[in-house]
């Protein structure tokens, strides 16, 4: 577990910063909800009249006046994007940073197999994502308690669970990419996460682009869909997890036989 522990120590600062930033923004949104609640009827009418933009963010199907509806949109934007960026960045740099920082030679001239390196790094990545999500969930629930709202447990767990899966998928795919990259991997991670987010916005705007939900993990994390259905879309989720598994398998395959320049 040496590599696992070493990875957690190396990634500690980034994890704390991302967790604090996402949790802080989520908490602020929840804490201002009571103040905004009174204005939500008018705001809801305004949001409902923005055509494609309304559909893109699922605001035509959610009631902004309820904590669930408000949280679904805010959570989608803050936890969805923030979590996606963190998972992608952490995943895409996990293997490639060793070559970028010229530490691969140090690591791989010790008696450790490449399978062990990939496995322990993957375990560290999954641990970081899990820890971040648990901390954010706890702080989010705390903020709901602070505003004395009853917690919509099922919806909250469904939303957070879906975003956790989204992060796992992006982390898995980016982890696979990481094995192929030598340096400059951050752009690839951020770019992929942003592209997936916008693909979902397009998929929400028109029926013809609905198939994009099969590609983007934001497809099974759409707050409006989740609240309306009360469950994850099994098909989209299964495809997403398949992408993650392919990414992880690619990492094992590529890193196992890769020349370290």
């Amino acid at each position, binding site marked *: 577990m040496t590599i696992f522990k070493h990875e957690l120590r190396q990634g500690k600062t980034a994890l704390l910063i991302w967790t604090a930033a996402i949790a802080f923004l989520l908490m602020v949104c929840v804490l201002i909800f009571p103040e905004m609640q009174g204005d939500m009827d008018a705001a809801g009418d305004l949001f409902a009249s923005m055509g494609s933009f309304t559909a893109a963010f699922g605001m035509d199907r959610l009631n902004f006046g309820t904590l669930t509806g408000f949280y679904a949109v805010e959570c989608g934007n803050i936890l969805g994007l923030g979590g996606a960026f963190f998972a992608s960045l952490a995943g895409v740099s996990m293997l490639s940073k060793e070559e970028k920082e010229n*530490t691969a030679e140090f690591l791989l*001239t010790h*008696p450790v*197999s490449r399978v062990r390196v990939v496995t322990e790094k993957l375990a560290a990545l999954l641990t970081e994502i899990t820890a971040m999500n648990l901390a954010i969930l706890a702080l989010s629930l705390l903020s709901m308690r602070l505003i004395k709202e009853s917690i919509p447990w099922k919806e909250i767990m469904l939303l957070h669970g879906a975003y956790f899966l989204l992060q796992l998928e992006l982390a898995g795919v980016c982890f696979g990419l990481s094995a192929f990259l030598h340096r400059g991997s951050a752009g690839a991670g951020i770019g992929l996460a942003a592209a997936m987010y916008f693909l979902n916005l397009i998929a929400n705007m028109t029926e013809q682009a609905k198939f994009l939900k099969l590609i983007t993990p934001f497809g099974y994390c759409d707050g409006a869909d989740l609240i309306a259905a009360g469950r994850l879309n099994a098909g989209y989720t299964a495809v997403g997890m398949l992408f993650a598994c392919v990414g992880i398998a690619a990492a094992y395959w590529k890193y196992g036989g890769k020349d370290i*320049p």
Partner: protein
Amino acid sequence: MNAIQIEDLTKYYGKTRGIEHISLTIRRGAFYGFIGPNGAGKSTTIRTLLGLIRPSGGRAWILGMDTVREREKILARVGYLPSEVSFYPGMRVRDILKLSADLRRRDCGEMSGRLCERLQLDTARRADELSLGNRKKAAIVCALQHEPELLIFDEPTSGLDPLMQREFFEILKERNKEGATVFLSSHVLSEIQHNCTDAAIIKDGRILTEGSVAELSGTGTKRVHIRGSVDCTSLTDCSSLTGLKDLHVTPGHVDFLYRGDMNALLRVLSGGDIQDFTVAEPDLEEVFLHFYERGGGGI
């Protein structure tokens, strides 16, 4: 069992040549020098041996184990010092040494402490604040603290001051006396000549020559330098002067390599006007330059 055995090892990076058909045998307990300038293939050979890169052809064994199939077992018994040392950012030297020991599942605290003291390495300092020399020292401790049977060092002295270089070679000699095999690459010929028992010269990815340092430097060949004038046609045309090579004639000076009967040489030279006359063993640098500048072919 040999420490290192390489058979027909070849590595191409796409179409670019790395090394071609390298074969070497390094016996256990040797202090072996691997000589060549930048780009000759020294690091590629070493990285292939350590499993960092996969060979395009050929095979190699370290301590009797296949370098591709038994990589982890080999690395447990090898200490490696790279030519360019990089550590994880933000870590202190003591954390790096501990990480290295943990990756080997060994407690190397005592040996690490002794080596740090000898190399005057401050373990409390952050790795990213270290000078090149101190980074090198930290890497040397990482390579030696688990007391490996085989030491593979790639350009080990770059960045070390002369005192530290001396201490470093003292440590290597002690390890060598205790039975460890040392394989070091360098383009500093004097350090190979002064420390190694055997050596190989690599050029353009191919081994040009190998053997004991004494053989490579001498091989019965002498560097003859004459101040004065000699009839050079008598030198080159004389049938009794076999083994005369590398003749350089400048006004007042004649210089050549000679491997033959000294009496025959003296008889020819006695016909000239000689003011001074020196006969010396050629040093390794001369052997090296011979191979590199004049196309090789045995000295």
